[in-house]
C-alpha cells in the first residue's frame, strides 16, 4: 500500500490490531496514536495514511482526531505537559502551580518553548485527585507537586529526557508502605 508519511513499521503496528475487531474502523484510535508517535503530530498526510490503511474516508479520520484531546493537530514540543485544572486539583493549588510552570518555561497555555522542548496544556481530571496538584507529561504522571519539585522535574526532562519523579503503581494513602 502506498503511504505518504507513515513507515512500514507503523503500518505493521496498525494492521496487527485488525484481528482484534470485526471492523477495521475500531483500530482508528490506536492507528492515530501510532501515527502521532511516529510523526510527532497528526498532519493531514498522516491522517490520510491512516484513512488508507483503515479503508475510511479522510474526513472520517479527521472527525475522530478532532474529538479526542490526546491528539495533536499542530506540532508540539518533545514533552507535552498536561496540567490538571479540575476542581479537586484546583483546591490544592493547581492554578498557582500552572502559573509557576508558565513562568518557569516562559510560555502561556497552549504554547511551546522556543527550543521545542515543552508544550504546556491544561487538562481536565486525570484520576489523581487525591495526590494533586499533578501533571501528566507524555506517558507519565507526576503527583504531589510543589514549585520546587516542578523545577527539578523540568530540569530532569531537559537534561536526560526522563525523571525519576514519575509516579509508580498507585496507592493512596500508602499507610503500609506497600
Amino acid at each position, binding site marked *: 500500500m502506498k503511504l505518504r508519511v507513515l513507515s512500514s513499521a507503523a503500518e505493521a503496528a496498525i494492521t496487527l490490531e485488525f484481528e*482484534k*475487531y*470485526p*471492523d477495521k*474502523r*475500531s*483500530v*482508528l*484510535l*490506536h492507528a*492515530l*496514536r501510532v501515527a502521532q508517535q511516529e510523526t510527532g503530530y497528526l498532519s493531514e498526510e498522516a491522517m490520510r495514511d491512516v484513512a488508507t490503511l*483503515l479503508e475510511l474516508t479522510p474526513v472520517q479520520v479527521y*472527525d*475522530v482526531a478532532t*474529538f*479526542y*484531546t*490526546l*491528539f495533536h493537530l499542530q506540532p508540539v514540543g518533545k514533552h507535552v505537559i*498536561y496540567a490538571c*485544572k*479540575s*476542581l*479537586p486539583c*484546583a*483546591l*490544592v*493549588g493547581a*492554578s*498557582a502551580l*500552572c*502559573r509557576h510552570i508558565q513562568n518557569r518555561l516562559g510560555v*502561556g*497555555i497552549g504554547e511551546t518553548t522556543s527550543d521545542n522542548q515543552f508544550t504546556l496544556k*491544561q*487538562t*481536565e*481530571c*486525570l*484520576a*489523581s*485527585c*487525591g*495526590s*494533586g496538584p499533578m501533571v*501528566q507529561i507524555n*506517558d*507519565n*504522571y507526576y503527583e504531589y507537586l510543589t514549585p520546587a519539585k516542578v523545577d527539578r522535574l523540568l530540569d530532569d526532562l531537559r537534561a536526560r529526557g526522563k525523571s525519576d519523579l514519575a*509516579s509508580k*503503581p*498507585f*496507592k*493512596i*494513602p500508602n*499507610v*503500609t*508502605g*506497600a
Partner: protein
Amino acid sequence: MVSYEKILTKNMDTPGYMGTLPEYRATGGYTAFEKALKMPPAEIIDIVKKSGLRGRGGAGFPTGVKWSFIPKTHVGQRYLCCNADESEPGTFKDRQLIERDPHQMLEGIGIASYAIGASVAYIYIRGEFDLGAKIIESAIQEAYQAKFFGKNLLGSGFNLEVILHRGAGAYICGEETALLESIEGKRGKPRTKPPFPAVHGLYQAPTVVNNVETLANVPYIINRGAEWYASIGTPKSPGTRIFSVSGHVKRPGNYEVPLGITLREMIYTCAGGIRNDKALKAIIPGGASAAFLTPAHLDTPMDFEAIAQIGSMLGSGGVTVMDEETCMVQAATNLLEFFYHESCGKCTPCREGSSWILQVLHRIERGTGRASDLDLLETLCRRIEGVTVCAFGDAEVAPVLSTLKHFKEEYVAHIEGRGCPFQPNVELVMAH
C-alpha cells in the same frame, strides 16, 4: 478508628504485593473462575442478583439484573465491556485497582463473560492511563498463559478473548453508549436509549458494560456467596465501596468501607478531618456530577438511597471536600468549565446551555454579574435537566443548582459586591 474488612483493597496492603498472577493466585485468585465454569451461567447470574451488587460506575444499577437483560434466545456474538475510563473529577479508585491488583478485574471479566455468554470482552481504558494499560496488558498475557483466557477454558468448552482498548482523552467516553461508539472507532457520542446495550450494544450485538470495581467484586461473591456479600453494607446498598476522598482533608486517598457509613466518618475518621483544622463548608459526595452538600448532611449514611434522598447522588464515589475558605461560586465555575469542555455537542441544550451557564458564572465571578443572573441560571439549568440523550445534562446542572440552593448568599454577595467577597486561599478559576 473502627476497622472494616477490606475486600478489593486487601491484597495490596501486603508489603511488596504488586498484583502479578502468582501473587494473586496465592491469595485464592481465579478459584472463583474455576468454580464458576462448572456452574450453569443462569446460576451465576442468580447469585450476583441475590448478592445485591450494584454498579460502581455511577448509576448503581443492580449488576445481576443487568446481566439478565441479555436476550436468552440471541444466537451469535455477545460482548462484555469493562469500563475503565475513570474520568469523573474526584474519582481515582479504578486506577488503583488496575495498577495494584489487575487480576481481580480480569477474573471478574472472565466470570461475567461466561455468565452472559460473551466470547469477547473489551476493556476500555482511558487514553491517559499509560501505566495502567501496560499493567493490564501484561496481566492479560499472564492470564492467557495460565489458560484462564483463550479457548475451551478449563475444559468447559467456553472460549474467551480479552482485549484492551485504549481511549484518547474524552470524559464522555465513560458513558456506556459513548464508550461503545468509541470502540467502534467513532466520536464518543452517546446513543439514544432505548434500545439499551443489552439488546443493541457493541456492533449492534447484545452487550453488558460494567465498571472495573463492579467486576472486581464478582469473584469474591462467587467464592464467598451471595448471603455473605449481602450481609455487608446496607440492605439496599450491599457490599463495600471504595470512596476516593480529595480536597481539603488531612489524608486524601481511597478508602474501602461498607456502604452506609456516614459522611462524617468518611471525612473525619477515614480521611483525618479538615486540613489545618479549618471548618468544613461543602462536600461533593459522588464525583463532579453530584450535587454539593453541606455540613448539615454529615450524618447521612453513604448509601445510594440516603444520598439521593438529600438531593445528591453517590455516583462514582468521589468525595471532594471543601473548607470554609472556599468560594462556592468559583467552585461551581471550575466545574462548569469542565462540563463545557467535555460536552460532546450532540444535544443542543447541553452543548449551548453549558456555554451560556459558564458565561453567566464567569461574569458573576469576575464582578460583573447582574441581579437577574440568579433567575437566569436557574432557568437555564431547568431547561437542560432531563432533556438530553445521556445523564451528562443532569450532571452539568447539579453543581450550579446545588450551590444556588445551599450557598445563594455567596452568589448575591458576588453580584452586589462586584466580585468575590472572600480572600480565598486558592484560586479555582484561572483568569487568562
